Each structure stands twice: as structure tokens, then as C-alpha cells.
């Protein structure tokens, strides 16, 4: 996979989450679902930010697509493709096998009734984040 990325000669940028800045507002979730699913539904966002209390205190945690490309590799029918550091999903090829959802190490692929949703690097979340807790940074491999 590294080969593909190097070959592209493209400066790859992916999302990075900074927990210490996050206020838990979920605006990122709303921005993502609005942009990509045309609905306000935080559970359809292609990232998972949590900020809640357990018995030990406040837990802030976030998972975002870091362009590891595991899903691209895993998809048996080539329905997830990477081009110039951007993922795209080809719904007509998808067989709803769910392999990508299971393999994503960050668990940020959304399983839908039909097909899936991957982060397409649209930056809506980062544009909305009020505290710069989400940034796009160069992927180091």
C-alpha cells in the first residue's frame, strides 16, 4: 500500500483528533452527516468523538479516518478506492459484505441499510469544529 501512496507523489493529509482541545459538542458529527448523508444524525458521521463521564471522571476519545487504507485493501470488489489521498465509495459495486466495516481499525466506517460511508476528506467536520480539535495533517508512514 505504501507503494501506491508514494507513487502518487501527493502530499497525503488525513484527519487528526486532539483530545485536549475537544469540548464534546458533536458539531463535527452533525457537519459530517449533513454533508454526506443530507440529514442531521450524529450516528451517520464518519468519525466518532466521545466526551462523557465514567466512574473515573471525564473521558474524551476520538476516532477518525487516518487513511490507513485497510478498507481499500479489504474490499473484495474494489468498491472503496483511493485517489490522490481521497477515498471514494462506489455504491454500484458494493455487495454489502461488511468486511470494510469490520476491518477499519478506527471503526469509523458507517454501515448503512444499503452500502457504507467512508470518510471522503471533505473537511466539513474540521470546518465546524469550534476549537481546532480536528485538523488535517500530513500522513507519516
Amino acid at each position, binding site marked *: 500500500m505504501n507503494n501506491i501512496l508514494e507513487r502518487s507523489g501527493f502530499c497525503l493529509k488525513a484527519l487528526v483528533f486532539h483530545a*485536549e482541545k475537544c*469540548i*464534546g*459538542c*458533536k*458539531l463535527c458529527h*452533525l*457537519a459530517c*452527516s*449533513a*454533508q454526506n*448523508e*443530507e*440529514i*442531521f*444524525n*450524529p*450516528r*451517520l458521521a464518519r468519525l466518532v468523538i466521545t*466526551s*462523557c*463521564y*465514567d*466512574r473515573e*471522571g*471525564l473521558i*474524551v476519545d476520538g476516532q477518525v479516518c487516518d487513511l490507513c487504507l485497510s478498507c481499500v485493501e479489504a474490499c473484495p470488489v474494489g468498491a472503496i478506492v483511493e485517489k490522490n489521498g481521497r477515498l471514494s465509495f462506489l455504491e454500484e459495486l458494493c455487495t454489502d459484505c461488511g468486511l470494510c466495516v469490520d476491518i477499519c481499525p478506527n471503526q469509523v466506517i458507517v454501515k448503512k441499510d444499503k452500502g457504507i460511508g467512508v470518510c471522503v476528506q471533505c473537511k*466539513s467536520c474540521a*470546518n*465546524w469544529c*469550534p*476549537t481546532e480539535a480536528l485538523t488535517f495533517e500530513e500522513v507519516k508512514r
Partner: protein
Amino acid sequence: MTYTGTVLRIDLTTGKATKEPLNKDWAREYLGGKGLSIKYLYEELEPGIDPLSTDNKLILMTGPTTGTIVPNSGKLAIAAKSPATGTILDCSIGGHFANELKYAGYDAVIIEGKAKSPVYLFIDDDLVEMRSAADLWGKGAHETEHLIADALGDVITLAIGQAGENLLPMACISSELYRQAGRGGIGAVMGSKNLKAISVWGSGGIEVANIRKVSAALNKIKREDTMTDDNMWAYSDGTPMIVDLSQSTGILPTRNFQEGTFDEYEKINSAAVKSTLKAKKACFACPLACSNYVKKGKTEVEGPEYETLALCGSNCAIGDLEAIIEFNRLCDDYCLDTISAGNVVAFAMELTEKDVHDFGIRFGEIDNFLKMPGLMANREGVGADLAEGVRAMAEKYGGGDYAMQVKGLEIPGYEPRGSWSMGLAYGTADRGACHMRAWPAAVEAFGDIDPYTSEGKAELVIGMQDDNAVKFSAIFCDFWALSTERMAEILNMLLDYEVTAAELTRIGERIYNLARLFNEREGFTKKDDYLPERIFKEKLTTGATEGKVLPREDYDKMLAEYYRLRGWDENGMISDQKKKELNL
């Protein structure tokens, strides 16, 4: 259209949950949140019912902005007839419950009757379960939330602690540990229904036409109107910022409102709170994040807010931040409203020092102070008296002139002798002494308006009451100082009809009048719009307010003008003409 159009009605007596359509006409006239919940209560409650009987209803109400990306739209209104005052009562609670309820498919939940034994509700989209709370009863709200999370996972919960179970008129409802529907005993209404908690999880979403365009427009509004200097104090400091302002203007309640300044204020001000800050935290869809998650010594809390610092700090002469944080945490867990709790403890301290009655606690005594929340919530020892609130304590032991309450609700953290408009705001607030119905101190004591005149105060307070009434119905958080024009602009992105700013102000006026009408029906009259004698008679002795009172003649004048401008008669009764004008 951002209403789901569905109301969930749950009868705890029969255990039945039914769906019914939202009353669209009422939604148009009252929007949601505060206004719409008051409308439902006004129509559905018989006058004169006992707030702690099965006749009372508990309403959870969202608004047209709930669940969308609109900044500061994360609030839920919780309403019932108040056990503390007998007035209408609506509380505003932040966190993540409101949006979750909307995603589950409901604009509102109306809870009626009483369960045979302790239960909690789980609303999981269409599935509504009444579950046994046998193992939760007797536990604090915090452990209750944790245990429910153990059982149900990723849900958002409203819970009561021991104070709610024991029907204290100052019992609140907690959510996500540190968010509260605080005032007027709303938690006791849950307790009276044997309802320990309500948990919700929703899988749905809210559709809006042209959602990408709307989102882009709202992001611009968020940048240019929400995250501005006018509002970013919430992020940089949060409400503790007010401590310094109140101290310098002499309106920081100290020693049960005997003074307006506190020598040790620097130990409890924003700088002190900031030195303990671990993280900033926001409600759903809020870019301002007013909450301070703090740790000091062995204790932690999301808070303490200004009201807690003032009422439980300076007002009890406690200049120890760690003690206030711990007191705050205990109150949140037992579910005691810190404004009322601080007031009753301070009142007990003064009664003890004045030899009126010995409650065994004096100003500044930290150890005794920290014992009070537990004693009150469980009605043990002196806590049994304190639990009833300052008005009941005064009726039993005396000291009524300095039992700091209006209509039975304890007074928040702004001394009316140094902010006459706050006096009027307390007197005319629908649920008793409240600073959320109008907070004119912002432009008066803390601003450019002369605090020591009755001139123009009625108009100021009315304008704020109406604006806030519509704001808490739309629903927006108080801390985004948005104009009604902006509100209209945003609502027009979401609704399938057009509203103007003028119409919104009219809706605010309608809501405020309906709340008054509810109270009128319950027998409240002009005499209930008055403040404790201390405010009228006793001169303050320190700081900027040294020598000040709020003379009764001036209060009379403000109140008369207020009634006149409201279109009410000289006894504060809403005129028939006003009722007709507002379609009440």
C-alpha cells in the same frame, strides 16, 4: 420542518405509553421548550392540584432547533407545577438528552400518574420500557447514571438522587452528572411519581431542506455571531467570571445577603477556578463550552458555576474553593439545587448566630457546611428543617424578614439593593426568584444603567423576559446573546412557514402572560410579587453598595409601571383585552 410531530405520553400508573400528534396550532403559538410545555400544562392540569400528587404531570419538551446543527440548541425544557412554589415551573437543562429524544422520534414526553414501585424509563426509538428501579432507589444520581450505563450502554439519562426521592422542594434533576434542571423542586415531581430516571437513545435524524446550504449559512453565523467577544467569555471563563463583577459592584450576596461584598472573593473567583481547570465542556451543538471541569484536592466537579460560588461560597462565608467544589459535587449527586441549598444553609447560619434557633452551624464553618447536603437530602437531624426551604424555616422559627425568597423560591446571586432591576426581575419571575427570566444586571449594575433608580426598569425587565421566553422555547441556550432577528433568520431555515422578529417577540409575550395566567389561576396576587423585607429596609454596609436599600416606594413604582406596561391591572391581573390580544 424540524418537529417530529409526535408526543410520547406515558402513564406510570398503568404502565402504558402512547404516541399522539403534537398540537401543531400550539406549536405555532408557543414554539416548543418553555412556551409549549407551559401551554400543555395550562390546558391539562386542574387548578389547585397538589404538585406532589399523581395529578401533576412532568413534561420534557424539545424545540424546533433541537437536534440540528444550530449553535447552542442543546437544551431541554422540563416542566411541571412546582412543589416549591405552587407556580408554573419550567427548567432548562443542557447536555445531550434533548437531541437524543428528538432522534428517538419525539418532540416531547408527557409523564403522568405514579408507578406502584420505583421504576425508570428507557426510551429506545419506538420501544418504551418501564424498568424496575429497585436497585437504584436510595442511590445518588451519579451512581444511578453509572449503573444505567452499565445496563444499557450508550444512553443519555435524566436522574434524581435522594433529594428527589425524599420530595425536597429544592430537589433537582441531574444529567451527565453535572447538568441540572435545577429549580423549584422539579426532581421531587419525579420522586413523587416513583420515577428514578429516564434514559433515551435515538437512531433517527432530522431532515432539513437544502441542508448543505443551511449548514454553511449556520457555520458563518456560528463564526460571526456566536463565537464573538460578546459570548466567548463562556469559553474563556464561564460564569465564575461574574464573581469579580459582583464584588466590585457590591452585589455579591454575602452572609445571607447581609453584605454585598466578600473579603475572600479572590479565593472563589474565576482566576481561582481556572487554576483548577482540567477541561472545557459543552452541551450538544454548542461551540461556547461554558462548563469548567475542575479538580482540586480529592474532589472534582463540572462547575462550580457563579450561582454556586455566590450562594454556597460568599453567602455562607465559605472562602475555600475546594470545599465549594465538594459541596457542589454532593449537591449534584444528591440532586439539590445549589442556589436554594446555599440559601438555606446561609439562613440557618444567620438564625444560629442571631440566637433565633440553633442549627449548629455558623458562617464559615467548613466541616459543618459539608455535612449539610447529606443531612438535607436524607432529611436527617437539622437537615429535616433545612430541607423545607427558607420560607418554611422562617414560618417555624422566625426570621422571615431575611428569609431570602420570592414566592417560596430562594434568591439567586445578585443583591437587589445594588441592582434594582434585578429586584423587579425576581419579583415578577414566573417561578419565583429567578435570574433566568431576565438578567438586567448585565446592562445595569454591570453596565451603564444607573442601578439605583426605578426609572426605565420595568421596560428593561419586560423586554428581557419576553426575549428570554421565546429564546427558551426555540430552544437556545441563554449564553448566546442572539437577537430576535437572528432567531427568526435561523427558524426560517428550519420551519415550513415564515416568522419575523416581531412575531417572535409577540410569542415571548404570549408565553410570559400564559405563565402569569397559570399562576393567577393558582391564586397568586400582587402581594406575591414582593421581596423580603431585608431588601427594603436594611442598609448594606460595605463596598460600592454601602448604605443602599431598595426603598419600598421605588419598588412599588417599578411594579406599578411593570403592570401598566404589561397591560395588567393595578393588582397584577391580566386584563381581558390583553388576553384577547394574545389569544390566551
